[in-house]
């Protein structure tokens, strides 16, 4: 992984920078010893690591502002970090950077049920946002798989999705406002409890900007009333194409399931061996979940089952109880872990138009044969967000590189059929070099210009998102 050459000038004044940071932060919040900074050398993209120069853990927005002002004055690159669960290397350090972790900023600042919002500090974990309101019958909708650990700051950085976005949207559709610190230390409030903000939609621009435009310290989030209940149906097919056609017919019929998950044979078998969920022997499996009262669930499931029957499923299992629902979900929820038990894997995140599903699955099979690496497919079928899992052996020389090449080919395929490189994980360092496969030079230039406005010195997470070659002049300036 190419990363910019660390600045010797910055590294040489490490002691000076530590002293300045220690003046504005509690002593335990400034981490500069190698044995301690090691905790921040990577995120969930563990294949790539780099020790940061310093890590800081501020407790207030004011401290974040002080840190950024100092780094701005000293010309030190800053990499913001939520909980470090990024699969794309969004929080991967450079050797001359200050890692700014928001983990200590984890308070709930306000809950307002009448106006259906919650205001939290950005280091709070996704699940604990829902946790703060669930006793009162509310929840926060975006539900990335890492929701137990991932921070709202990272969710905003990557515009995270989850299994339930077909109905509830992703982070950007549920974010109402932020308090953000600019790279020069200025604090800005954008949006809030009202729905329409004046001027340009800066909130929409910040969400998904991978920590390159500012450091979000507080967020106002939309909360929703929890549905009365939810129930899945499991539908198994002996062909991927048929499963794909069934997904299309369900959507066309006017039913809007809250989740529609797809697993292929490798994932079905591996999950079954791992979790004993009772999955059938099949080529493709769909889990379709609907929400509402008992009567509403029944009404929707009846329609879904009628559609599925037309596609001659080899098995169709409607959950009749909480236990059965949990069992249907068990295999899907443990799919990544199950694959992880049998092999190292790389998880891709391309999105495709749903109609291209059969073709893309067929091509992935061919690419898999060509590279000699197995692929398991598990994904959100309703919105076309695929998660091909490429199996490789990290101990075998050349296997990781081969796997990355193969991953790139699959992502190019996603773009070719009208989709994109990443649906919910973000570009980070991982997919940086594929950006020109999706965007023209002018498209990229338009995005770089946006960063120029927010962070003219290109100090904030500047080695991410865009191919290094396209940003080197700006970073060097």
């Amino acid at each position, binding site marked *: 992984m190419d990363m910019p050459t660390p600045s010797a000038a910055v590294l040489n004044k490490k002691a000076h920078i530590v002293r300045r940071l220690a003046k504005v932060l509690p002593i335990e919040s400034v981490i500069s010893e190698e044995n301690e900074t090691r905790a921040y050398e990577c995120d969930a993209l563990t294949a790539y690591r780099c020790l940061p120069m310093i890590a800081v853990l501020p407790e207030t927005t004011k401290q974040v502002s002080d840190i950024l002002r100092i780094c701005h004055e000293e010309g030190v690159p800053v990499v913001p970090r939520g909980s470090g669960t990024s699969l794309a290397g969004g929080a991967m350090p450079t050797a001359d950077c200050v890692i700014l972790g928001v983990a200590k900023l984890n308070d709930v600042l306000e809950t307002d049920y009448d*106006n*259906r919002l919650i205001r939290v500090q950005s280091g709070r974990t996704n699940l604990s946002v829902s946790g703060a309101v669930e006793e009162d019958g*509310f929840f926060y909708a975006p539900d990335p798989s890492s929701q137990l650990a991932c921070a709202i700051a990272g969710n905003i950085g990557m*515009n995270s999705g989850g299994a339930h*976005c077909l109905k509830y*949207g992703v982070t*950007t*559709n549920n974010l109402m406002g932020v308090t953000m610190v600019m790279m020069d230390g200025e604090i*800005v409030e*954008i949006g*809030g*409890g*009202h*729905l*329409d903000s*004046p*001027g*340009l*939609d*800066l909130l*929409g*621009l910040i969400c*998904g*900007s991978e920590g390159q435009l500012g450091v979000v310290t507080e967020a106002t989030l939309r909360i929703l*009333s929890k549905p009365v209940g939810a129930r899945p149906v499991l539908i198994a097919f002996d062909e991927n194409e048929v499963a794909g056609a069934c997904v*299309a*017919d369900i*959507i066309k019929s*006017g*039913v809007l399931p809250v989740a529609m998950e797809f697993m292929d044979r490798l994932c079905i078998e591996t999950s079954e061996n791992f979790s004993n969920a009772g999955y059938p022997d099949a080529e493709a499996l769909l889990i379709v979940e609907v929400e*509402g*009262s008992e009567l*509403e669930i029944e*009404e*929707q499931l009846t329609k879904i089952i009628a559609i599925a029957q037309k596609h001659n499923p080899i098995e169709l299992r409607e959950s009749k109880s909480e236990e059965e629902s949990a069992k249907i979900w068990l295999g899907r929820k443990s799919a990544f872990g199950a694959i992880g038990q049998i092999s190292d894997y790389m998880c891709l995140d391309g999105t*495709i*138009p749903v*109609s291209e599903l059969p073709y893309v699955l067929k091509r992935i099979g061919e690419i898999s044969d060509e590279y000699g690496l197995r692929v398991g497919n598990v994904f*959100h079928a309703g*919105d*076309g*967000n695929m998660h091909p899992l490429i199996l490789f052996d990290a101990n075998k020389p050349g296997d990781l590189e081969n796997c990355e090449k193969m991953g790139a080919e699959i992502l190019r395929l996603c773009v070719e059929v009208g989709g*994109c490189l990443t*649906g919910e*994980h973000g*570009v980070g360092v991982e*997919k940086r070099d594929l*950006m020109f496969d999706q*965007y023209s030079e002018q498209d*990229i*230039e*338009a*995005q770089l*210009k*946006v*960063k120029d*406005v*927010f962070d003219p010195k290109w100090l904030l997470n500047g080695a991410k*998102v*865009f191919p290094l070659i396209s940003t080197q002049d700006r970073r060097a300036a």
Partner: protein
Amino acid sequence: MISPSSEVELSELLLDSSEPIRIIGGGTRQNLGNNVQSKKNISTSKLTGITLLEPAALTLVVRSGTPLAVVKKSLDEVNQQLPFEPMDHCDLLGSSGYSTIGGVVACNISGSRRIQTGACRDSLIGVRFVDGMGAIIKNGGRVMKNVTGYDLVKLMAGSYGTLGVMTELSFKLLPKPEATATIILHGLNDEEGVAALCKALGSPNDVSGAAHFNNETLIRIEGFTGSISYRTETLKKLFSKYEISVVTDTKKNKELWNSIGNVSTFSKTETSIWRLSVKPTSGPKIMDTLLKSGIKAEALYDWGGGLIYLSVPDNINIRDHLFGMQGHITLVRGNGGGAKVMPLKNNLITEIEEGLRNKFDPRKILNVGIMG
């Protein structure tokens, strides 16, 4: 008026322009926003047509000059719809012409369903535009989950043409509901009405419209027939202490919510119309402040109370009376003594917005000043 017939033609035209330009769609919203001093008008009227409609993927891709009526008709045929229910400004502004999908996006026009499915910008998943220097730029695409690079799609929605001329737009669609019901609570004052809307929206009934006007409080639900009758009963129980009537007829519901979304009630008044975006619960308080100041104001609340259309006699600047209010006020029609759109009183945000406009339109030629 110049009407380029392709993106490339538009690009050449903008590259060669150095004088201020006004961008025109179908002309129905020309009076939204501040006046634009321009020497040249560019129309999107020849950039038309649906390029992709894929019902199984809930996706529409359409050129910006396409009339909204054409879009709606095509979606009707596949039993789908634009989720955000854009309002028609003709009645309120007394304008003629036809609304275009590009105009809807440029002004981020969202109707009553916004509280459930989000604004126009939330359904917009891809955009192609030509910036002030003639560069053709695309962002997003045709898939609903896409975090590849910065989200310029959101930035373009509601930018009133100040960053570029949009040429093609992609949307996430939703199925049309099989049934609709509106539960009307009678006799509630503004405070009680908004409190009832908050209660309905905070219940698990998936409310898709929540408005209050003239002592009537309207709660809309949409979905499958069985579900609608179930939720109607649930909501009736929730509000059993009020006098209730229910509208179930599809056509009547459509008319009812069109009249709310289009603010028809104020279309013929000789007053100024202000639009306020606020926290729902603060709406009635704002109204109270105005009435206590002796201003003869009438309010239509939508979005559960979070969107207020105020009818106020001309020549009264309500901003003077709502100093320190959290939210956002614009003058939609009439004379309020001052600009229709005021920039936010935050220097840093103004600086960022100016910075962005300077990057995309460095010669300052596109719809200059329209957003304040």
